[in-house]
């Protein structure tokens, strides 16, 4: 079990009368964490609370054992933040900007220039790094935003909509970068509403809606569901398939079943062993062509959670 890096309990954040986060309790381990939810779900607010930019009205928060609004400066040495919107200084070039912010994050002047080049190399900015940021495309700006967030090598990264406004190739590149950063043992919190991107990147998922927690857990567990479900293809004589289907339907919880030619496609809840399923098929004079756990997509899980949540 990975140690908990970020922990909130009964967190409540308001903007005047509007409740942005309500009774939010989370325990997030190290790794890449996908923060999902529609617009206005409270994703950006949660990130702001975690880096001490917004003070909650209730509840407790701990990031790497630190309380963000009590040990703010110390905590901020250990986090990197990539904001959602355009926030880079257009009149600077990335080398100057990244090294400048590296110094503000506590790096020695002598370290910042080579380190700026190192992280710009990592994010894939070439000779264009000497051009002013104002001339950059959205994708290039996103890379610079990532570079300024990682320049001081923080163990925790908060990336707010990192692929926003990027073209498909750029998105792909950014997701690969996030994965590569995640592999270094950092905790990377990625906020997004692009479900397929999070599904490909994250190891742990948090789903928020209107400031409330709808679901939290490891991605694998969410995709497999709480229960053990299987999907199987059974082959044999069509006149034997129908009784087998009827038997399954009468005895177990079958989600879907379809006979096409001499194949029965079945998706069902199955808590027994695989051998038992195979022997049942043999008893009916049939053969199992395919037997595998039924994995749903994150999109299915997301919408199911939403329907249940509402």
């Amino acid at each position, binding site marked *: 079990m990975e140690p908990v890096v970020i922990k909130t309990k009964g967190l409540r954040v308001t903007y005047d009368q509007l409740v942005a986060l309500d009774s939010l309790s989370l325990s997030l381990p190290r790794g890449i964490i996908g923060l999902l939810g529609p617009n206005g779900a409270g994703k950006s607010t949660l990130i702001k609370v975690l880096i001490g930019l917004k003070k909650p009205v209730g509840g407790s928060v701990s990031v790497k054992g630190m309380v963000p609004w009590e040990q703010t400066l110390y905590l901020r*040495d250990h986090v990197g933040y990539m904001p959602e919107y355009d*926030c880079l200084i257009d*009149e600077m070039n990335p080398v100057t900007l990244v090294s400048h912010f590296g*110094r*503000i994050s*506590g*790096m020695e002047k002598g370290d910042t220039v080579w380190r700026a080049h190192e992280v710009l190399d990592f994010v894939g900015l070439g000779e264009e790094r000497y051009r002013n940021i104002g001339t950059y495309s959205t994708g290039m700006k996103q890379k610079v935003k990532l570079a300024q967030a990682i*320049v001081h090598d923080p163990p925790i990264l908060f990336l707010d909509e990192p692929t926003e406004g990027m073209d498909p190739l750029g998105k792909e590149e950014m997701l690969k970068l996030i994965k590569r950063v995640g592999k270094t043992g950092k905790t990377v919190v990625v906020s997004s509403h692009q479900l397929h991107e999070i599904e490909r990147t994250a190891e742990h998922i948090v789903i928020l809606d209107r400031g409330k927690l709808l679901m939290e857990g490891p991605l694998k567990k969410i995709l497999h569901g709480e229960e053990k479900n299987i999907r199987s293809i059974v082959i044999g004589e069509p006149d034997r398939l129908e009784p087998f289907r009827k038997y399954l339907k009468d005895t177990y919880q079958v989600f879907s079943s379809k006979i096409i030619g001499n194949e029965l496609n079945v998706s069902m809840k199955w808590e027994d062993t695989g051998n038992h399923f195979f022997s049942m098929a043999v008893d009916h004079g049939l053969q199992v062509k395919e037997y595998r756990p039924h994995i749903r997509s994150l999109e299915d899980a997301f919408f199911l959670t939403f329907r249940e949540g509402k």
Partner: protein
Amino acid sequence: MDMMPLEYRAWLGVRTRYLTRVRAMMDGVISSSFSSKGILSIFIIGIVLVHAFPGVVLVMTPHTRLTAWMLVGEGFFGWTYLTSGVFSTFIFLLSAGITSNLISQDLRNRSFVIYFSRPLGVTEYLIGKFGGTFVVMSAFCTLPVLVNGIMIMATQTGPDYISSVRILLLTLVAGSFASLLFIPYGMMLSSLTKRKAYAGIGTFMTYFSLTLVGEFFSASDPNWKLLNPMNVLHYSFELIYGLGLPTDISPDLYVLALIILLVPTTIITGIRVKRYEGAV
């Protein structure tokens, strides 16, 4: 075949102390000021017109020691040094030029968030911006005057070097005061607009308009001269060098003029930036 991507490498350095971060902010202002062609031009022309010419004249004129009168009094052929309109005009131009982009740049680019998500509070942010501007202003208002003072001392014919050193130390105070007096107003205007031009022209035009209005009404009451920021600076020089305020100027109104230039402007700037810190 794809090229192998560069792998992420950790930074293994030791973090600096928090106060050093303010120094980083200052360095940012200094390097951006000196890389601006406009500011650099004002700086160089100013050094030649304001400091080089009077410096040469003062050094070449026979003198027994460095006196306050040489720096702030009626100079030779009516040419004054620190109390000349040319010096004040260049201070206005330079302070307007540097401060115009100080905060408006972060407003325009919405970059407060990348400052305040780092170990930097509003106070450190403002001190850093102010400090950087002060250093650049000092390079114009203090350093050349000190150099001229040292040159005058080096060529003095009399033996009273102690008195000259005292004047030199007062010059350091006067230069520092001139460097900081006009920064808060410029910073305030810079925190009120996203546009560098509005902040820069607004700052300079305020000083210019106040100069005109102050001089226009001074015929009816000499205290109107205090509306002219140039006069506030000149009176401050005279006070620092121990020459006293002119008798027709009210000391209370002089202090009020100083407070207006420094206090509300700083408070407004602080409130504006604090507001942006909360909104990031």
